[in-house]
Each structure stands twice: as C-alpha cells, then as structure tokens.
C-alpha cells in the first residue's frame, strides 16, 4: 500500500521534483519542438483551405485558437484540482502547482481571445462578437486574473495559497454555469460562433490534433518551468537550494572564461 502512493509523496517533495524535473525538461522540450514542427508544417502549409464556408486560409487560425482555448479550460480545472489537493491533504507542492499554472493558463486564455478576435475580423467583419466561446474565454480570463490578484495580495504565502485555492474551487464550480448561461444568452441574441458549424472535415482534424498535442506538451513544459521557480521561491531557506546554487556557479565561470 505504501509503495502505491510513493509517487504521490515524492511529488510532494520539492527537492525531489526540482532534481527530477531538470532531467524531464529537455525531453519535454524536444518532443514539443518535433510535434510543433510537424503541426506547423501541416497547419501553415500542407493542410487545405476551407472552401465550403468560404473561410479560405483563415481556417489556419483555428489550429492555434482551439488548442489554446482547450488548454485555458483544462488549465483552470487542473488548477482547481491542485487547490483541492492542497487544501485537503495539506500538500504544499499542490499549492505551488496551482500558483504556477495561473499565469500560463491566463496566457492561453489571452491567446484564445486574441486569435478568436483576429479570426472574427475576416469571418464576421468585426474584431469582437459576443459569441458564446469568446465571451466564456473573456470571463475565464477574469477568473484567472482574480486568482492571480488575490494570491498576490497577501503578505503571507500560506494564507495566499489557501485563500486563492478556495477561489479556484468556487471558480471551477462556476465555469460550467458561466459557459451554459453564456451559451443560452447567446442563442437568445442570435449570435454566431466560429467553431460551431457542424463536424470538422477530416483533412482539418489531423493538423488540429497534432497542434493540440503540441500545445499540451508546451503547456506542461512551461508549467514545470514556472513550478521550478515557485519551488525555489518557497524553499529559499533550505539547505538543498543553497547547495544547488553553489554547485552551479563554477560552470558559469568556465563558460565565461
């Protein structure tokens, strides 16, 4: 029984994570780059243009809009799960993780909004349309910003962690409510959506799935990077951090010399 949960306890150890993650990162970045290269080749060059609805080349924006939108939602859910783990099992790494995800999730939300707006201009003839997806993304961005604002407003990190976690959990209960009410409100006002025009033809699916995979890897890589920073901030006073900092200095000196 103990061994089954060992990974969980190891993940809970900042030192273990910090040491292991430096070995994970090169692999993650390498596979991200490969997948991203294939994805970009397809999405920018090899995939056909959209002819049925006359979107033409603008369909290529979808290959970043959809992955970014998906990850912005997934990111918030993961953040809330980490918050629950932190509050229930008092795991400090989980709090660090939820704090680390927030800026990256917010960036994904921003990308989804930006690309959505740019996509909207040739499609709808306007930069902004209050359609269900864009509106939900906007509110999601507000939720992320609220989380970051609350977390940054405390002098004491332990309090900030707990308070922001409660907010993330309350927020994640609200995400589906917000999504469905916005959708309902949108149909009321006869809006249109970029992405709700029937099933996607298979020739668009392949590049999309590759790009989604690439974005997932990218997201994981960035979260690990941010989490390493967060771990360092939180463990500044512990022995292993100073050992690590000290061990790195000679290498840099050599490089300079």
């Amino acid at each position, binding site marked *: 029984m103990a061994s089954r949960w060992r990974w969980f306890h190891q993940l809970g150890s900042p030192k273990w994570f910090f040491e292991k993650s430096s070995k994970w990162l090169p692999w993650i970045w390498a596979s991200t780059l490969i997948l991203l290269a294939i994805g970009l080749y397809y999405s920018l060059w090899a995939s056909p243009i959209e002819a049925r609805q006359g979107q033409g*080349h603008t369909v290529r924006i979808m290959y*970043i809009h959809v992955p970014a939108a998906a990850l912005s939602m997934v990111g918030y859910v993961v953040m809330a799960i980490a918050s629950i783990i932190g509050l229930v099992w008092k795991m400090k790494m989980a709090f660090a993780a939820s704090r680390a995800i927030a800026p990256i999730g917010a960036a994904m939300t921003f990308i989804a909004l*930006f690309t959505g707006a740019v996509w909207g201009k*040739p499609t709808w003839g306007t930069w902004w349309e209050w359609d269900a997806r864009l509106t939900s993304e906007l509110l999601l961005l507000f939720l992320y910003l609220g989380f970051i604002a609350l977390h940054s407003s405390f002098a004491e990190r332990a309090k900030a962690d707990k308070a922001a976690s409660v907010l993330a959990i309350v927020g994640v209960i609200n995400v589906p409510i917000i999504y469905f009410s916005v959708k309902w409100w949108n149909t009321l006002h006869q809006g249109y959506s970029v992405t709700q025009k029937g099933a996607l033809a298979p020739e668009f699916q392949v590049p999309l799935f590759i790009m989604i995979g690439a974005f997932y890897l990218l997201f994981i890589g960035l979260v690990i990077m941010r989490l390493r920073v967060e771990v360092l901030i939180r463990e500044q*006073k512990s022995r292993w951090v100073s050992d690590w900092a000290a061990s790195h200095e000679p290498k840099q000196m050599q490089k300079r010399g």
Partner: protein
Amino acid sequence: MNSFHEFIFMGKHGAYVWSSYIVTFLVLLGLFYWFRYLLKSLRSQVKSELNSDDSGRGQVKARKLKVDKAESRD
C-alpha cells in the same frame, strides 16, 4: 498550398493568419524566457546571500519549549 507567394499572403488573409501565429509565438516565447530569467535571478540571489553573509541564512532557528514545573501547591 502551391506557392511561396500563397504561403506569405494566404489568399488575402495573410495579415490575419500570420499575426495570430506571431502573437502566439511571442507570448509563449516570452513566458519561456521570463521563467528562465526568474530562475536565474533567484539562483544568483541565493548565491549572493550565501557569499555575503553566511550566518544570515538559517539564522532564525526554531525555538524549543522549556517546561518548568513549580512545586505543587498544597
């Protein structure tokens, strides 16, 4: 896609497609370098604190409780 010209101009939507991709790329790259910068600056901060004042680190030691029972009252 049949030509380099089409690749650049994307029909007449080149500006839209390329601006989406470029902004996304810049945001993600910005995050990458920002986090790397944070890690490096933290490292040099820890390092400089180590060098400047060795006693300063871990100086605030945890305290212990000292229990001292008085003779019981009668």
